[in-house]
């Protein structure tokens, strides 16, 4: 506290005014305003317990013995932390298999979605063929149709594709292909491609570059930030996906983590896992997405800005 007040005491510099918000830096030099500021700060700090609390509880429950976890009142930190719960959960829940499946599902989703969305966005933004406005409208109008309204027909579709009569049930392609139809990705990439000056692509075209060369040599290298955003969002969405893989992948060999956890521990499971193992399993399943957020915070926040929600 003392450290902060010391730092605040320096006179407010003029440059700071450009990043001012509702409350001006000048007002915060008054003791009364500062007291309010710090009580709001304390309040926010306290409310982080609402999210950190349950996460901590998951982590600490995972370290308890199967007796201690059912102790009332519960211990805040386990008396004898059983780190072996993690390794047991890892093997009991067959994590190597399901982690692998989850990664494959995410990787395939990224490759396919980037391929489908980037080519379409490039065409709409730079090649602009005749009828582009209609095509664009047809793509973007699917933003309004949540996939759940055609959940069952999609399932029927996947289990017997038209014309070729192939079933993609229990096949990763059955998850990858429907996900690849992402109007949001096309929108994000198109709005980014639009910011690349047309002079650049026009000049290359005059020099005889083919559309493919424009795409692969100019647009893609310049769009790394947007591609990164789409990649991260796709990985997160794929890692969080539950309902569709649950319907399509009922063979345990191909299931991702979230579906496997549901079948192993769900209310329908015949042999419910010990709770401490389940908690350890949940912690293990949360670590990769949390790491992803810590590493790519900037890109995720930029992605939220890129989706055009800034108004």
């Amino acid at each position, binding site marked *: 506290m003392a450290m902060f007040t010391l730092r605040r005491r320096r006179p407010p510099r003029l440059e700071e005014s450009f990043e001012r*918000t*509702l409350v001006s*830096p000048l007002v915060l030099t008054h003791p009364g305003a500062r007291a309010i*500021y710090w009580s709001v*700060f304390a309040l*926010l700090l306290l409310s*982080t317990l*609402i*999210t*950190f609390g*349950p*996460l901590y509880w998951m982590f600490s429950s995972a370290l308890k013995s199967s007796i201690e976890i*059912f102790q*009332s*009142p519960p211990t805040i930190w386990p008396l004898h932390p059983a780190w072996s719960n993690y390794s047991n959960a890892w093997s009991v829940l067959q994590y190597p298999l399901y982690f692998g499946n989850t990664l494959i599902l995410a990787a395939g989703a990224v490759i396919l979605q980037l*391929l*489908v*969305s980037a*080519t*379409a966005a490039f*065409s709409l933004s730079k090649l602009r*063929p005749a009828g582009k406005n209609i*095509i*664009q*409208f047809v*793509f*973007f109008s*699917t933003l*309004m*149709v*949540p996939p759940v*309204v*055609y*959940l*069952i*027909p*999609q399932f*029927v579709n996947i289990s017997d594709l038209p014309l070729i009569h192939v079933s993609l049930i229990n096949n990763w392609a059955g998850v990858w*292909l429907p996900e690849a*139809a992402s109007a949001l990705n096309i*929108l994000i990439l198109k709005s980014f491609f639009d910011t690349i000056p047309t002079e650049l692509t026009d000049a290359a075209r005059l020099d005889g570059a083919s*559309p493919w060369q424009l*795409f692969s040599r100019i647009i893609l290298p310049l769009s790394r930030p947007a591609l990164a955003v789409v990649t991260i969002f796709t990985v997160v969405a794929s890692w*969080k996906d*539950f309902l569709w893989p649950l319907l399509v992948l009922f063979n345990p060999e191909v299931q991702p983590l*979230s579906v496997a956890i*549901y079948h192993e*521990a769900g*209310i329908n499971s015949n042999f419910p896992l010990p*709770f401490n193992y*389940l*908690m350890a399993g949940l912690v293990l*399943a*949360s670590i990769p*997405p949390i790491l992803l957020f*810590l590493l790519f*915070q900037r890109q995720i*926040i930029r992605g939220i800005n890129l989706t055009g*929600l*800034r108004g």
Partner: protein
Amino acid sequence: MERSSPSRGARPSRSARSEESVSRGEGLALGRARLFISRNLGGYLFLLPALFIFALFVWYPLVLGFKLSFQSVDMINPAIWVGWANYQKVLADPLFGVAWHNTLTFTGYALLFGYLVPLVLALLINEMRHGKALFRLAFYLPVMLPPIVTAFLWLWLYNADFGLINALLQAVHLPGGLWLENQSTALPALVVVATWGAAGSTMLIYLAALQGVPASLYEAAEIDGSNLWQRIWHITLPTIRPIMLLMLVLQIIATMQVFTEPFTITGGGPNNATLTVLILIYRYTFQDAEFGEASALGVILFLVLAVFALIYMRMTSRLMEAD
């Protein structure tokens, strides 16, 4: 573009000028077609993967859904046209009213709990000169968790005998509750879970929107002697109002599709108190093998969501505008 094409398209026909006018016209048309192709072929080729995927996995299933809703389908016997029978059966199902009531109640609670919380959080965090990154992280973290983790974690927190929530209540001498087993508390309990898992993402969107409020407006208002509330009411909120409306519609659309929480935490119970429309669709399909009825209910859900989607579409019409 349009204006230049006739003159260029006329070029190949120049060599055939001596011939009769019919072939001249043909040559002109041919040249024009060739030019059209050379101009647009690349564009169409690049659109091909997306058009293919969208046709097969969005537009076709959408149409198929309407078709299936008029058929009796069990995936074993050939489909039979049954007219409106599926719709009649779905509407006559006593669970239809229960599912819609629960879904709309869920949406109502979700707006009550979840609409203002992210906005207030964003407003407060945006004013912080310290720990902004920590707060952002703290409130966004649950968004990153797989929903199944969130669901099972809260199943454990809500546990009547050994859960954290009842233990905390006991510590301050308040009675605990059978949160998930009680018909009147089960649905609100699930709303808390869903809000916990989603509020952070709305908060980040508001935080981004707040960056767009021009500081000069605040300064001018301050010089005019306005107080904090007046600035929030007359500057901040009007500036971010489009996004607030958008979030409202998006939140309604999203919460009406609620599935994971009731499916994994309560399984639709107790006594169907958390049975939602989507769970009913799931049951029709995978318990009763009534794909037609499931599709009919899907079409009804589609029509209801379409109303909100149209509102959303009008709001985002700027995105859809041809440029």
